[in-house]
C-alpha cells in the first residue's frame, strides 16, 4: 500500500513536470483524474515557480482554490495568483526562517507558547503538504489535489478544527499557516504575485494607493468613497 503510493507519487511528479514543460496546463490539471473535473477555471501557468515542487504546487492550487473559490465575487485563488504568492513567500527570507529564533533545545510546549518547531516556514509547508496528502490518502484514497471539491472542503474543515490527525504536529497549525498565507496573497499589494489585477481590492472597494484622504475625510464621512484602485507598481 505504502509502496504503491510512493510509486504513484513518483509517476505523478514526473508526469506533471513533463506536462508543465510542454503546455500551459497547470500540474493540478495534469494530475487530475478525468473523472474529477477541476473546481475552478483553468489558469495559465505563466509565472515560473521559485521553490514549490510540482506536487506541492498542485496541492497549493487545490488548497487556495478551495479557500478562495471562483464565484460571482472573484476568480479562484490561483486565478488571482495566490499560488504564486505562496511560492514567492516560501522562497523569501521569511520562508527561510529569517528573523526567527531557531536554537534548541526544542520542546512541544503549551499552545500558549506559540510555534516551537525547528522547521522554517518553507520546511513546515513541505511537511504539512506531505502530512495532508497522507491523511487524504488514508481517508479518501487520493492526494488532496485529486479530491472532489466536497472532499477538499471536508479535509480543510477537519484540519481547521484540528480533527485531522497528523503524526508530527497539529493539522490545525498547518491549516492556520496555509489560511493566513492564502488570505495575505489575496489581499496584499499585487507586487507580491497575488491579488492579480487588484481583484480583491475591486471586490471590496479598497482604493489602495496613494491613500491621501485629508481632503476627503469630511466629504466621505457618511458616504462610500469609490476610486479605481492603484498598486505600488503604479507609482514605481
Amino acid at each position, binding site marked *: 500500500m505504502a509502496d504503491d503510493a510512493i510509486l504513484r507519487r513518483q509517476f505523478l511528479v514526473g508526469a506533471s513536470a513533463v506536462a508543465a514543460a510542454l503546455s500551459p496546463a497547470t500540474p493540478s490539471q495534469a494530475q487530475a483524474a478525468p473523472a474529477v473535473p477541476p473546481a475552478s477555471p483553468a489558469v495559465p501557468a505563466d509565472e515560473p515557480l521559485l521553490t514549490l515542487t510540482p506536487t506541492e504546487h498542485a496541492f497549493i492550487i487545490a488548497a487556495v482554490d478551495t*479557500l478562495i473559490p471562483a464565484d460571482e465575487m472573484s476568480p479562484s485563488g490561483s486565478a488571482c495568483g495566490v499560488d504564486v504568492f505562496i511560492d514567492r513567500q516560501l522562497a523569501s527570507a521569511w520562508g527561510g526562517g529569517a528573523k526567527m529564533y531557531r536554537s534548541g533545545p526544542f520542546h512541544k510546549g503549551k499552545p500558549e507558547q506559540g510555534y516551537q518547531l525547528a522547521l522554517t516556514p518553507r520546511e513546515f509547508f513541505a511537511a504539512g503538504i506531505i502530512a495532508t496528502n497522507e491523511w487524504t490518502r488514508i481517508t479518501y484514497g487520493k492526494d488532496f489535489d485529486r479530491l472532489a471539491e466536497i472532499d477538499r472542503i471536508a479535509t480543510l474543515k477537519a484540519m481547521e478544527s484540528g480533527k485531522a490527525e497528523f503524526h508530527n504536529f497539529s493539522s490545525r497549525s498547518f491549516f492556520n499557516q496555509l489560511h493566513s498565507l492564502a488570505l495575505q496573497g489575496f489581499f496584499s499589494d499585487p507586487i507580491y504575485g497575488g491579488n492579480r489585477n487588484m481583484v480583491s481590492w475591486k471586490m471590496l472597494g*479598497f482604493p489602495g494607493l496613494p491613500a491621501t484622504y*485629508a481632503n476627503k475625510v469630511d466629504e*466621505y464621512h457618511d458616504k462610500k468613497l469609490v476610486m479605481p484602485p492603484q498598486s505600488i507598481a503604479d507609482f514605481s
Partner: protein
Amino acid sequence: MATRLKEVDAVMVGMGWTGAIMARELTKAGLNVVGLERGQDRTPGEDFTLPSVRDEMKYTQRLELMMDNSTDTITFRNAPAEMALPIRRIGAFLPGEGVGGSGIHWGALHWRNLPTDFRIRSHIQQRYGANAIPEDMTITDWPVSYDELEMHYDRFDKLCGVSGQAGNINGKIMPGGNPFEGPRSSEYPNKPIKSALPSTMFGDAAKALGLHPFPAPVAITSQAYTNVEGVALGACEYCGYCNRMACEANAKASANTTLMPLLRPETKFELRTRAFVSKLNYDKQAKKVTGVTYTDLKTGEEYEQPASMVVLSSFVFGNVQQLLLAGIGEPFDRSTGKGTVGKNYAYQFEASAAAFFENREWNPFIGNAGTSVCIDDFNGENFDHGGLGFFGGGYISGGPAGAPPITGRGTPHGTPEWGSEWKRATVKWYHHFMRFNTQGSVYANRDNFMDLDPTYKDALGRPLLRLTYNGTENDHRMSRFLLTKLEACIKAMNPTHYDMHPRPRNFTIVPYQSTHNTGGTMMGTDPKSSVVNRYLQSWDASNLFVMGASVFPQQHGYNPTGTVGALTYWSAKAIITQYLKNPGPLVHA
C-alpha cells in the same frame, strides 16, 4: 579582547524615543554623547517614502520594523512551575528595532496617567480601607507626582505635536475633552484629528448614557506644525497605513522625525548602528558603571566604550536583561519575595469588540489611531470600585479599522473563515464594521516577573530574559467589567450585529495583543523595594540611568509612551541641573 575606545561623557544603549530625547538634552548641555543602536539606521527620506511605505504585507505581516528574533528574543511561561520556551517569532507584542525603535511603528496614542495613578496604593488604602489591597497585588505609589511631571508631559506633547481636545486646563474643565484627566498647563499643540462616522456614533451613544466621550489624543499632527525644537512636521493624510508602519507624511511623531534631524548634524553626538551592547561594565565596589562593551555586528569585533555616564534606553526586556547580566541590583526572587530587578512585570490587558451596521456606510481604510472616540469614565480611580472585587480599569475606544484589507476587514462571529460564504460576508460588511478596544490596566502581582533563562541564549551567547506572566483574577474581573460597560454603549448604538471578544483565560504569546510591557526596573523611594530612584538613577550605580516603561511600578489604563517621554525629560532635567554639578546619588537611601 575588546578594543578599548576613548572615553565619552555619556553612552545611550538604544536609540528609540528615550535614547534620542536624552541624547538631545545632554548634547545641549555640552556633553559628548554616543548613541549605540543594535538595529539599522532609519531616516524618513530614505525609509518612509511613497510608494514603498504603503506596503501592508511588508510592514504588518512580515514585521519589517520589528526586532530580529534570530539575534535576540525572550522565553515565556505562564507560571513559575512551567518550563519557559523561546518566543521563536514575536506575536503578542512587537518591540521595534533600529533607530527610532518601537516609536516608529506605534499607533501614537498619546496619554498621561491620572494624578491618582501616581499614588495608587495609598489612594486605594484611603478610599477602600487599609486592608483593601490583596497580599499578592504588589502595586506601589510612584515616587513622582503628576504635578511634578506635568511640565515634562507638556514638553513631550510639544515635541510630538500631539493632537487632541483638552479636558482640564489648570483645573478648569473644558467641554468636549476628557474631564477626568489631570490638569494640563496648556491646550494640546494641535486640534483633534478629524473624526470618522463610527467614532461619532460611539461618542453619541456614550454621551446619551451619561458618559464623557472625547477624541483620542494622538502624537499625529492634524495640521502642519513646527515643534518646540523648531522641526517642521507634516499633516496627517488619514492614509490608514499607520499601525506597524512608518509615516510618510512626517505626521506620526517618531524620534526619527522630531529629534534625529537635530542630532545628526550635532558634532557632540555620534550614532553607531548595528552596535549590540553585550554588557554594562560594573564596578560594584565603587557603585558605578565604567561604560559598556558592545559587538559591532558589521564586523563581529568587540569594543569597550568607557563613559562617565550610561543611559539604558532599550526596550523593557533589554533593560532588565542588562541589569541582571551585569549583576546590578538584587534579582527578584519569587519564592522569598526579596530582590527588585525583574519584579512587577506588567502588561496591558486589552479586550475588544466589533459591531456591524448594515444601513450606515463608511470607509474602513481611511483614518489613523486618532480617528477613534474614547471614554475614560471607567479608568483607574475615576469610578468607585466598592463591591466590584477588583481594582484598576481602562479607557474604552471605538472607531473604524483605519487599515488596509489584510488587517482591516471584519465579519460577524459564526461566519466561515474561508469559502464563498466568507467572501460574501467580507464584501457585505466591509464598509459597515467598526472596532472597539478596552485599554485595561495590569496591577502588578508577585507571580508575574522576569529573570534570566537557564537554558536559552541570544546571538552573543548571553542568557535570554525569561518572562513569567499570566492574567490575574483581578485583571480578568476588571476586563469583564470594561466589556460590560462597552456592551451597553454598543447596544445603545443599535447595530445589526455585534461581537464581544473577552480575553482567554491564559495569556498567549500569539496573536498580537499589545506591545505595552512594563516593569522590571521599577522606580521607587528606597533601594529595598525599587531599582531606580525618582530620577531614574540606579540605586546601585550612581552614573547609570534607566529609561522607559521598565521603570513603571505597574501599568495603568493608558498607552505608556506619553509617560515614558515625560519621565525621560524629568530625568534629563535632574541630570543636567543637579547630577552634572555634583555627580553622585541624587537621592540618599
